[in-house]
């Protein structure tokens, strides 16, 4: 180089990049995804591949031909959205629905707001909720877990842990099933242990901080404990709430999405507590058996407000 470069300090960079973070998130999602492949077999694989493929494709097409900018599919964010969307879907959902969900997630929830970083709502969740409202039957008929099955659209369906929640017995085998993931549900939400493994990886790699997942889980545990103790007949045990349904998946992978969560620890705690409360309210008093997606989307809408009013702890 013939000319010396002048630039403002700092002159070194930590080497962190969007790609690294996205790769970390994908690695962290792998255990839960693999458990999904195991229990739901072929269907899970098809749904995941279609979801990831169409998310990447739609992002490329929109950026290349609609926005006429350099596509940023290499940063990995579309892959993350695709995997997350797949993990939120039942494994027996038709391919065209998955593609429609991906189109909504990428086209409406992400690109129309200006792409990565500018989206107010988590794209994968927006896609899932879009599908849930449009096709409630397809979205809530969960296949029964059948290890390494080749069944796809014809898979036998059953109820999720949460929808058969009320009045159920809480015994050790049932809890064990919830932990390893032997239950009906979306293909990525079933195994608590796999998701917690992912959480540990994310925390160890410092991709996310503990504030959001922990505050969500603690809030749900406290709130449901109070309800359960006041009336065990009517309200389910906190263990079922924590392990059944999409709470863990939502708390670890969805609520911690960078762009849609608050930007400082205090705000993150408020965000998490809000999600916890709304989730339990929807689950126990609302019409849907599952409330995590709605809770996260509602709190996503509050994120700018939280950022504005809750400031980090200042020095001095």
């Amino acid at each position, binding site marked *: *180089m013939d000319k*010396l*470069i*002048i*630039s*403002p*300090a*700092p*002159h*070194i*960079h*930590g080497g*962190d*990049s*969007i790609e*690294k*973070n996205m790769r970390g998130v994908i690695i962290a999602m792998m255990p839960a995804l693999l458990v999904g492949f195991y229990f739901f077999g072929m269907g899970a694989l098809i749904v995941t591949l279609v979801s990831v493929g169409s998310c990447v494709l739609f992002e490329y097409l929109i950026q290349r031909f609609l926005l006429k900018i350099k596509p*940023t599919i290499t*940063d990995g*964010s579309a892959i993350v959205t695709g995997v997350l969307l797949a993990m939120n879907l039942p494994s027996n959902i038709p391919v065209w629905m998955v593609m429609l969900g991906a189109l909504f997630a990428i086209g409406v929830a992400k690109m129309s707001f*200006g*792409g*990565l*970083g*500018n989206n107010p709502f988590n794209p994968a969740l927006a896609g899932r909720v879009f599908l849930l409202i449009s096709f409630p039957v397809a979205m809530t008929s969960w296949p029964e877990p059948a290890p390494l099955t080749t069944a796809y659209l014809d898979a036998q369906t059953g109820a999720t842990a949460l929808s058969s929640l009320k009045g159920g017995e809480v015994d050790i085998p049932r809890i064990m099933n919830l932990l390893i993931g032997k239950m009906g549900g979306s293909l990525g939400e079933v195994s608590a242990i796999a998701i917690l493994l992912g959480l540990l990886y994310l925390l160890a790699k410092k991709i996310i*901080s503990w504030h959001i997942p922990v505050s969500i889980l603690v809030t749900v545990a406290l709130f449901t404990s109070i309800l359960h103790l006041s009336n065990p007949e009517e309200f389910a045990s906190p263990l079922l709430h924590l392990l059944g349904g999409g709470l863990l998946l939502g708390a670890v992978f969805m609520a911690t999405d*960078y*762009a*849609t*969560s*608050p*930007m*400082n*620890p205090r705000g993150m705690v408020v965000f998490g507590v809000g999600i916890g409360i709304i989730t339990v309210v929807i689950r126990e008093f609302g019409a849907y058996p599952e409330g995590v997606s709605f809770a996260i989307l509602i709190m996503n809408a509050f994120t700018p407000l939280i*950022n504005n009013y809750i*400031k*980090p*702890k*200042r*020095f*001095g």
Partner: protein
Amino acid sequence: MKTFRIGGIHPKENKFSAGQRIKTVALPDRVVIPLAHYSGMPSRAVVKKGDFVKVGQLIGQADGYVSANVHSSVSGRVSKVDVQLDASGYKRPAVFIDVEGDEWLESIDLTTDIKRECHFTKEEILTKIQSAGIVGLGGATFPAHVKLAPPPGKKAEVLIINGVECEPFLTCDHQLMLEKGEEIMVGITILMKVLAVEKAVIGIENNKQDAVEYLRKIAKSYPGIRVVPLKVRYPQGGEKQLIDAILRRQVPSGKIPIEVGTVVMNVATTFAVYEAVQKGKPLMERVMTISGKEVQNPGNYLVRLGVYLSEVVNQAGGVPERTGKIIGGGPMMGRSLMNLDVPMAKGSAGIVFVPDRDSVRGQDRNCIRCAKCVTVCPMGLEPFLLMNQSEREMWDEMEQNRIMDCIECGSCSYTCPSNRPLLDYIRYGKTTVGFRIRSRKAAKV
């Protein structure tokens, strides 16, 4: 192990020159002694063309409250008083001297034995420090005598000595502590006497274990002095961070350390105080580090003020091939130099050569709102927000978001996964907001 409580990063230390003994750089034919300082007013030249000056003779008289005397570092004839491009990137006044011999002022004690007793009164010491032109050698070059004279009503309880050296690459303070430990200790006792404090704490990051052990050993014979090892964490060398790490007290926004009863001095400044008070030697030379990933023999050099950096580098093995950027100071807060034909100044702690593959910044992309800048900011600010507001010139909002607290440590830009130039914009905002605050105050008066 102690460290400060908010934010911080841990860049790769790269202390290649650690353990290299301090070498003295030979005298060049000509020196250019800058009269301007990093902060405050330039000094006023008191010599003119043709004057003969000796080593240690006053050539620049302090001009204003935040200004310091400048002394000749060589003996010789003044060839001119003119402007010279210096490390700030601007042409500023300087005294050009052609070297003739090496003739020192008679009042300077050139013996190397350590003089432990100090019989001067507080006022005498302060005058000596002021006339010796001692400034903070950590980088901000704030005049030491101003720091040592707390405003009326404020009283220091503890003296903190900054031996942290948290910048990557730099090792000059580390080596100084190893080689001049006794002198630093005497310097600390002098400073304690000036401030009338009983306690002094030396903060050293524990990647300098040998310095911690050595100073601990000799500190036994100096009552009141304690050595505290600190966890390696940038920007621990920042005054406010260091106080938080050692005393667990946080300096309030917009205030100076004396507010929490302490004064912070760099080890190199302390050594300069020792030399000025005990040996009568003004500040006219300092230790600097020459380092970099591809530098042949990185080391620590004792350099007189005004020597062209190119001379120093030549004696240290020359500029490595494929150098893309030369940094004056450390890589986190230093300034990139336009060329090496700039003179050594009081604040020059080092030269770091960056290979060209590392010297260009990555392409900046969208903010993904990952909040990592908020997490690492040692002042608890929101860099992403300040940058956005600076881009949109929302000065009042920036002021409310405490932009003036920013210490410009660069942790935010360092950590940003999108390579966003956070600090560039924040500095822009800080300059503008600072100007607005000053003009508002001036309007009130």
